[in-house]
């Protein structure tokens, strides 16, 4: 099978069924190294399905998926080791503090836990040093998000998959988060995020794929040194909701 050697993530004619319904019907896209790619779509467009299939949680009924040139079906372990994944609404243990959470996940991932590295990662996501020893149940959503990203940084994988990373964050936290994501991409990480936030996607992504009804209906690229224009994407996105299209 054909794999583009420079592509970090590649979906080719991907078809996926969930409980007897086709949720992805033949989508293809690639994400290059050091790129932020945003899959944009409304509820039920198939965004999270795409992410989960890259992790091997959902098996495609047609087409292929590869991560770093490796087919997802053939070597799931290698694929998962290459990826750090942040599910929607960051998900770590509430009864543990930031250090304990990080250490636990790192141990399971087989990454030696280095105190200095953990501090550095928490610094990098700018988590308030006083909060680091408190249990996560006292954290705000943005703080939890930061710990989850620190984990991704510490695992030092090339690829990050983010599921609706900004939903539920306040505007300041969103800005902070976007800066962090851009910084990570600039330092060589490949990032695939799914979101329904048009404005956010335009701010942070190098490219945007527009998903609708399980199909990729458009791709937008940022001009050299600039950002994708929100207006264009917004028009394409909200098209879906016109009555005419729904009737058709």
């Amino acid at each position, binding site marked *: 099978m054909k794999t583009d050697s420079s592509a970090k993530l590649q979906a080719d004619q991907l078809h996926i069924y969930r409980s007897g319904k086709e949720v992805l019907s033949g989508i293809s896209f690639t994400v290059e190294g050091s790129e932020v790619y945003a899959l944009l779509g409304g509820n039920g467009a198939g965004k999270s399905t795409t992410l989960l299939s890259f992790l091997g949680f959902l098996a495609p009924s047609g087409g292929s998926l590869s991560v770093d040139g490796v087919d997802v079906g053939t070597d799931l372990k290698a694929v998962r080791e290459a990826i750090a994944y942040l599910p929607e609404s960051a*998900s770590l243990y509430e009864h543990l503090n930031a250090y304990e959470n990080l250490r*636990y*996940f790192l141990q399971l991932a087989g990454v030696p836990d280095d105190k200095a590295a953990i501090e550095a990662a928490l610094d990098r996501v700018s988590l308030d040093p006083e909060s680091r020893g408190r249990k996560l149940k006292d954290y705000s959503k943005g703080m939890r998000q930061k710990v989850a990203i620190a984990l991704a940084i510490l695992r030092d994988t090339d690829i990050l998959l983010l599921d609706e990373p900004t939903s539920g964050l306040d505007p300041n936290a969103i800005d902070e988060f976007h800066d962090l994501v851009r910084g990570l991409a600039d330092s060589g990480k490949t990032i695939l995020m799914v979101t329904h936030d048009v404005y956010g996607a335009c701010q942070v992504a190098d490219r945007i794929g527009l998903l609708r009804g399980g199909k990729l209906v458009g791709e937008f690229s940022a001009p050299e040194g600039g950002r994708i224009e929100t207006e264009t994407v917004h028009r394409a996105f909200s098209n879906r909701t016109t009555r005419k299209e729904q009737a058709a």
Partner: protein
Amino acid sequence: MSATLTIAKEEWRYWRRSNLALAVVAVFIVILISVSWLTALRMHAESHERAHHQADSDQTFHSQPDRHPHRMVHYGHYVFRAPMPLAVFDPGLDSVTGQTLFLEGHRQNSATFSASGSSADLGGLSWLTPALIYQVFAPLLIIVLGHGAVTRERESRALAPLLAQGLTGRTLLAGKMLALLLFVLLLLVPLVVSALISLGSGESLLAAASLVGVYLVYLSVWAGLALLISSILHKRSSVLATLAACWLALTLVLPAVAVNVSSYTAPLAGKIEMELTMLTEVRDLSDGHDVDDSVYDRVHASLLEEHGVDRVEDLEVNIRGVLAGMAEAKLTETLNVYAERRMEAEMRQADLLGGYGWLTPALAVAVASRTLSGTDLDHYHRFLRQAEEFRFGFVQGLNRAHAEELSYIDDINRSRDEESWMRARVDASNWQVVDEFRYEPAGASVRLASAGSSISMLIAWLAVLSGMLVWTGGRLKP
């Protein structure tokens, strides 16, 4: 392997930080220890009391004055069932079977005075023993702790990132199972203490260790079940409700239902019913009181011929004693046929009941536990058989004294006057035929063998659950 350990350690850390888990475990431990303590005290007192009564009874028998030996046959003797060492953990049938057995000539009495017959009746569960706590209530504890094992990861949305970073479902389940197994080991500490104590009072290491092993397998079955349901169902509330329903069905409903079915499909004739059936057969046999009974005419004649005399008065032995011995032997043979028949029927019913262990491990462990502790039906029957053998032994010893040490003339003239009455007796040294009754339980290896089928049921349960866990682990999805 290290990932498994990390997960197990994390599970323990979660429990340590969960107030609910700590509170439940604390309450359980308090109840378990107090019940173990009370049961040990009770069994110790029982053991003491029965030994005391036994000594009393022996002493009374031996200190009877010179007497007509047949009087002593009717005077009879009492034996008491000494509790087994492991009864401090599982008293088993001890409370529902009689503890006192009156042994006399011509009759096989039933063991009387069970503790349950004179106790305050507050429902079946009020007979709390350490064994019952392990069989019925420890599973609840495992459910409370184990039901969240995987569901909690799902609900806190940690399962997806865990699996996404390369952890396999099987490793995750192995870690959780390890944590639960360590908890099971902790739960077994009071049992191990009871087992050690029983070693001190003469129990064999094999029986005590097997008992601990059986409960280890049983509680592991529950740990496996909790983990399995936790990884199959997604909502924590439905996991707990499902497990609680399984618990209700397996520990409370099915064993009792099995009792109804067994007693219906293999009905048991009562003792009196069996006695009356037997009577038609025994009616033709004499109890030996009457020497002229036609059944013994032949014996009579052959005895005279054997000794070359014409009259019974000229015999060297007292024919009344000889005949009493023969009648006793004949009667006992018949009585034993029926007693065996009844015990077999009881065993058949009990085996039928034990077979339902394939359906519920709670029944399998209960049977295995009683068998290993030596407090099961088989041991109760052993007591009855040994007591019967003992009874026959001393009755025949007295009949021998009757035949050999009491002259026929004195014997038949005993009611003539006060002096004859006094002459028709034998020396009290003959009362030594009643030896110390010592109940011999089955050896540990015999007990282990007879617990075999129940143990294999438990192992089958564990094997099936392990297989299902391995299968589920391979397909674990967030």
